[in-house]
């Protein structure tokens, strides 16, 4: 029960300054690179530069390697510490920012862009005077969302030796210092909340986003890889080739994949089952404002704690295995879906709801006859997208003993079986790429291209 009393002694909080700084630094440096590389790539795709389809495919396939898997690779290649975290975050979020911004550019209003092109403007000019202003609000919304994700990811990459709060968290768990674990989780929730607020500020005053430049640059400088480590990295990477699995490992593969997919499915289901009945009460159009606000905060906390951290805590309390993994995914998903479902209800058309209310209907019937059918499209799409995301997350939580492909990958790394490790990375990649592809096709058929998530 000591878990429920956080360690807030001055000495411990002082000790946290460096890891918190590292975590923020990794996120800032990673996102700085992601924007610096992702935006030009997205502009190239958005203006249909020669070979843009190839770029799209490259981004999609890079995005299919979960961030923590990238972090493990980076730790092996770059070495322990925040440098590895920066590399992993920069790669993952370059792909994410590039891909989503490219989609936004490709679907931007055509007429003003054609007019610009007719003047003989260059790609850069078209971007500066057409693409960016046309899509600015979406760019900012997604950008701040991506930064929030990067902050959570920056915590989890630490769990595999990327430095920062994640490393601290794993250390405290291994030392059975649960009161410190609670402190760390509170710090993490606070950090994500701050990033969320900052994102809202940047959406209102976009110039504030430029703060990312100095912070990102400083952090990049602090974590610059040395020349020696570059040569070392090449050597290590050579040692991973060619990827290979022995026969018993190949035979175990289907079971591992089934475990991972089972965790993703179970976690999504649990998240939906927890979120669906509670989310109407989190919508201000349905519930009293005080109740709605309280539930939103609960969702925020569940959402701020990444799947992996839920997993770390659960593995300690209910033991290892895919069941713990599914619950970890479910708790985080419940927070995400609860927020998104509530927003879908808030966005339901006004007139039919008013008509139902005017018949003197009670609240729950109004929800059942009005809000749910009216918001059904977004509800389904958000859930499908969460399932897609949870395939990634299931591969990640496997690393902390929840089983599946992730656990096999992590064990191979811990035992320095790098060729096996790379083989598992490739399997993970294939699995996620396939689920992404299926999910995207399904969403396009439902007429939905972009979904916010968190």
């Amino acid at each position, binding site marked *: 029960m000591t878990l429920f009393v956080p360690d807030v002694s001055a000495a411990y909080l002082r000790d946290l300054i460096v890891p918190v700084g590292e975590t923020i630094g990794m996120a800032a440096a990673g996102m700085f690179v992601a924007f610096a590389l992702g935006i030009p790539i997205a502009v190239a795709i958005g203006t249909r530069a020669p070979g843009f389809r190839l770029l799209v495919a490259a981004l999609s396939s890079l995005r299919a390697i979960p961030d923590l898997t990238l972090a493990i690779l980076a730790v092996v290649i770059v070495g322990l510490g925040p440098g590895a975290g920066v590399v992993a975050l920069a790669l993952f979020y370059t792909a994410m920012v590039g891909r989503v911004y490219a989609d936004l550019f490709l679907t931007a209003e055509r007429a003003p862009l054609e007019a610009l092109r007719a003047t003989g403007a260059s790609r850069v000019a078209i971007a500066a005077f057409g693409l960016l202003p046309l899509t600015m609000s979406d760019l900012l919304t997604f950008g701040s969302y991506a930064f929030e994700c990067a902050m959570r990811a920056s915590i989890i990459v630490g769990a595999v030796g990327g430095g920062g709060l994640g490393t601290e968290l794993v250390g405290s768990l291994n030392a059975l210092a649960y009161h410190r674990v609670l402190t760390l989780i509170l710090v993490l929730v606070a950090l994500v909340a701050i990033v969320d607020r900052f994102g809202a500020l940047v959406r209102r005053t976009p110039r504030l986003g430029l703060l990312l430049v100095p912070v990102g640059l400083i952090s990049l400088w602090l974590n610059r890889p040395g020349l020696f480590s570059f040569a070392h990295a090449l050597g290590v990477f050579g040692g991973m080739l060619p990827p290979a699995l022995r026969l018993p490992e190949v035979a175990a593969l289907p079971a591992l994949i089934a475990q991972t997919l089972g965790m993703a499915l179970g976690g999504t289901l649990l998240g939906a089952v927890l979120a669906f009945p509670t989310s109407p009460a989190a919508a201000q159009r349905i519930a009293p404002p005080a109740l709605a606000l309280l539930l939103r905060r609960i969702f925020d906390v569940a959402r701020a704690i990444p799947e992996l951290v839920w997993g770390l805590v659960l593995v300690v309390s209910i033991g290892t295995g895919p069941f713990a993994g599914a619950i970890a995914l479910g708790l985080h998903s419940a927070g995400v879906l609860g927020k998104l479902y509530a927003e879908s209800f808030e966005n339901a058309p006004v007139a039919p709801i008013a008509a139902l209310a005017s*018949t003197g209907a009670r609240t729950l019937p109004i929800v*059942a006859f009005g809000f749910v*059918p009216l918001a059904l499209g977004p509800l389904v799409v958000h859930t499908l997208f969460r399932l897609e995301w949870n395939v990634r997350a299931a591969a990640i939580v496997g690393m902390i003993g929840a089983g599946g492909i992730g656990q096999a990958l992590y064990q191979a790394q811990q035992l320095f079986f790098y060729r096996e490790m790379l083989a598992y990375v490739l399997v993970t990649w294939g699995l996620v790429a396939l689920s992404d592809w299926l999910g995207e096709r399904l969403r396009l058929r439902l007429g939905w291209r972009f979904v916010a998530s968190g």
Partner: protein
Amino acid sequence: MLELRGVSVLYTRDARPALAGVTLDVAAGECVALVGPSGGGKTTLLRSINGSVPLAGGSIRVDGVDVSTLRGPTLRRLRTRLAMVAQQHDLVDRLRVYQNVMAGALGRWSTWHALRFLIAPRRHELEEAHAALSSVGVPEKLRSLTSDLSGGQQQRVAIARALVQRPSAILADEPIASLDPLLGEQILRLLCRLARERNIALLCSLHQPELARRYFDRVVTIADGMLAVDGAALRAGGAGPAHVR
């Protein structure tokens, strides 16, 4: 029936009252049209009867019950007796037609009954929906998806929902504004016929004074939040205040 006495409404940010001392009666089975310029107070008047707009002065009685004193559950119970018909787009388009029609019964159903109906409607409930749809002329649409209906058909379904509500009064806010003229006249004729047959007070805001005069028992004009002319009063030879009866 509806009794409005000196009804005033102030929207806080507006210096000019939205309604200034409106007095009006609508008897059971009587069809009254409300005409006047946009922003003149037609919608506010209808919404105030429903208890959706707080009154700054005066009183509104529905079947003798003072609306402004009601809150929460009692207001909800009153609303079951007032059916609203809006411009359009006020049906839930993803539901089946019979589900939208029977939504009119939500006010008298328990929450449990409502949820059970969504999953497993009983035969007599479907028959009630069918009967309501027959009286608005689209019985064959019972099980159609609401989004597959045309604008005119949707408005008929909205009226069927109002009938299922078994109201004392129907408050219709520009019910034909988004329909073509021919369809619009059909809908007006239908509304007035049903109101007379079933002894329902009908108060209907309209844009077209000539249609109002053709189909309604009485026409009142509202501008700047005040009633100007009462058709019946004029015909009776009295040029006095709006409230006569």
